[in-house]
């Protein structure tokens, strides 16, 4: 009896006599589950068709067993002998045995390819030595050096040591223009071989330029659309939305047509006498082409967030500033502009995120100097250097995810609007 009185003290129960608190908690848990089950199918779909493949790509960027699985004896020797051990007769005997096995399995090419990633020009060393591996005799060291003196190279042995475990950070080192010195320390590659950092730098620089250009071009237009009456601005908005809806390849094609040396812009300039046939400007298949076309393609992504922030700003604020004696510039700078900063942040971040990963437009109009890091990923994929492509992609992905996180913190991902 005492129990019942204490539990009844709040005095509130549902019609079937259960305490209100637990009934409510029960109902809320059920509502939660119901909402979650609606989302679950899509979440599972995205996890399988999107997150899992990317996870697999990340795994591939640190994993390559082309060497370790085909060279068991030498890999065992590396794990028994610490770095710095001078490879003696046992090491060469293991190497010769593995190469002989590789000759039988026809896997010398795979082994050589793996080492070739880290030390270019060594693939043929493996294939040619393996081809005659059955003729190698003890003492193996002298016998192998007689075939090819390169087998004594300390850098080669360091590279093989790195490849002897399937999990390796070496592809990330390559993607950052770094390599292993013969003593195992990390050093920068010779200046003539440095490409990746330069391309990362160029990608971020061009993206920043494109972001700046879209802001300069988009701000006045967004402002005009925001202050015009809705009927007019909706009509003008179509001019912004049409490019947004038009195929990317169509827009890229248009820029080729406009900008190529026999194209519309150059021909018009020649026809009006500003240029002659000899001084036609090269505006495409270089960095300028990438910048112009991408600015055009990404401009709507700047205008739309700016517009949605500018539209609700009451015009009376600026008028009040003017009536208090501010010049029009001062009213803009101190009253209007600060209120548009959220829109600038949203548009600029969105444009930058999209620009950093662009592939199609730079590939078609960029020439050699307008290629971005995405094009390099595609290049290595085409060359079947998959682990390096995955490592570069992982670095790019990390950069994009940091920006995405920033976007979510500052603007909130659910505030993204499309037209």
């Amino acid at each position: 009896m005492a129990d019942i009185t204490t539990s009844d003290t709040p005095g509130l129960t549902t019609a079937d006599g259960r305490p209100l608190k637990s009934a409510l908690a029960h109902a809320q848990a059920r509502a939660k589950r119901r909402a979650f089950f609606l989302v679950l199918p899509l979440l599972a779909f995205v996890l399988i068709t999107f997150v899992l493949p990317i996870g697999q790509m990340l795994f591939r960027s640190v994993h390559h067993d082309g060497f370790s699985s085909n060279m068991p004896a030498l890999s065992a020797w590396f794990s028994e002998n610490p770095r710095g051990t001078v490879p003696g007769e046992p090491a060469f005997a293991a190497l010769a045995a593995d190469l002989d096995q590789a000759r039988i399995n026809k896997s010398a090419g795979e082994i050589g390819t793996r080492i070739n990633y880290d030390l270019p020009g060594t693939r043929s060393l493996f294939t040619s030595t393996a081809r005659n591996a059955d003729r190698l005799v003890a003492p193996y060291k002298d016998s192998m050096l007689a075939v090819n003196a390169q087998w004594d190279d300390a850098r080669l042995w360091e590279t093989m040591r790195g490849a002897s475990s399937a999990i390796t950070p070496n592809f990330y080192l390559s993607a950052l223009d770094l390599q292993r010195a013969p003593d195992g320390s990390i050093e920068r590659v010779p200046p003539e071989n440095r490409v990746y950092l330069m391309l990362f730098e160029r990608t971020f620089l061009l993206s920043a330029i494109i972001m700046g250009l879209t802001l300069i071009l988009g701000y006045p237009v967004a402002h005009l659309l925001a202050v015009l009456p809705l009927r007019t601005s909706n009509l003008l908005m179509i001019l912004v939305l049409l490019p947004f809806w038009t195929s990317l390849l169509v827009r890229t094609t248009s820029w080729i047509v406009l900008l190529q040396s026999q194209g519309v812009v150059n021909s018009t300039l020649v026809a009006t006498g500003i240029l002659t046939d000899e001084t036609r400007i090269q505006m495409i298949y270089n960095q300028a082409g990438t910048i112009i076309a991408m600015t055009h393609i990404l401009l709507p992504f700047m205008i739309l967030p700016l517009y949605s922030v500018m539209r609700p700003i009451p015009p009376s604020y600026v008028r009040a500033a003017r009536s208090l004696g501010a010049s029009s510039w001062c009213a803009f700078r101190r009253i209007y502009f600060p209120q548009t900063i959220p829109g600038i942040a949203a548009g600029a971040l969105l444009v930058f995120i999209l620009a950093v990963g662009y592939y199609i437009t730079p590939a078609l109009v960029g020439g050699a100097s307008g290629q971005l890091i995405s094009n390099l990923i595609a290049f290595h994929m085409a060359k079947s250097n998959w682990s390096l492509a995955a490592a570069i992609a992982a670095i790019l992905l990390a950069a994009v995810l940091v920006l995405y996180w920033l976007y979510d913190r500052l603007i909130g991902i659910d505030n993204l609007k499309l037209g």
Partner: protein
Amino acid sequence: MALPTYASPLEKLWYWTFRVICGLVFLFLIAPILIVIPLSFNIEPYFTFTEKMLALDPDGYSLRWYDGLLTFGMQMPDAPRDGAWWADVWHNATWVNAAKNSIIIGVFSTLLATFLGTLAALGLSRPEMPWRRAIMAILLSPMIVPLIITATGLFFFYSMTGLANSYIGVILAHATLGMPFVIITVTATLVGFDQSLTRAAANLGAPPSTAFFRITMPLILPGVISGALFAFVTSFDEVVVVLFIAAHDQQTIPRQMWNGIREQISPAILAVATILVIVSIALLTTVELLRRRSERLRGVTPG
């Protein structure tokens, strides 16, 4: 924003300069898209206006590039144009086959993305939804992650699971890419959705399914359709993933354009581009009309 009567001459000057600047930006946005339309009727294989075209002489214009779209890849392009000729076009013309592939892939990936996306948007818009922010971030990430990274990941995944070189693989990938747009448009429609309407339906004895199909569905339908159109355009325009995971004979329109631009750009590309521009104008008009309808249904002030 009419110019106030007290504006100084300098302000008047700025007022008009500002409009000229905006006009130029609009020109920058729209001119490159419209320029391909007249050029696609050029009788010469040039990418610039000939004198005859500028003089509006009918001899300067022709439909030869459109004709080329049909005949390219045909077995007997010079046969008389009867039923057999059209059958040849339907089965063998490269661009027609590309269009068929694009439409098949587009329609199925759109159906998948719209179904799953709408369901998820309904869940995400409920106030009780747990971990909403994190789940939303995951679901929208296919839109943010660079396509080349998605394509690289899918290439490894599909070559392992045997989905490479198949329609199913491309359709699944395109559904993933189109789904964020469905979520965004449908959740935008559900913002401000009056929950008391479904409660009223339940109160009047409607089971949840009836309440959904007779009350909720008609109200969110404009958002669902525009989300579906976004998803379709995303698939119809996508080339990177197709390049990485589709078989060689699985040509789509953007892939065929990509090949055309890389090898030898011909005015036939401009004819395709013109058709695509007209398609996008039609889609944009539809979406715009749907948006106004949705705003009217929800009682938002009409635009």
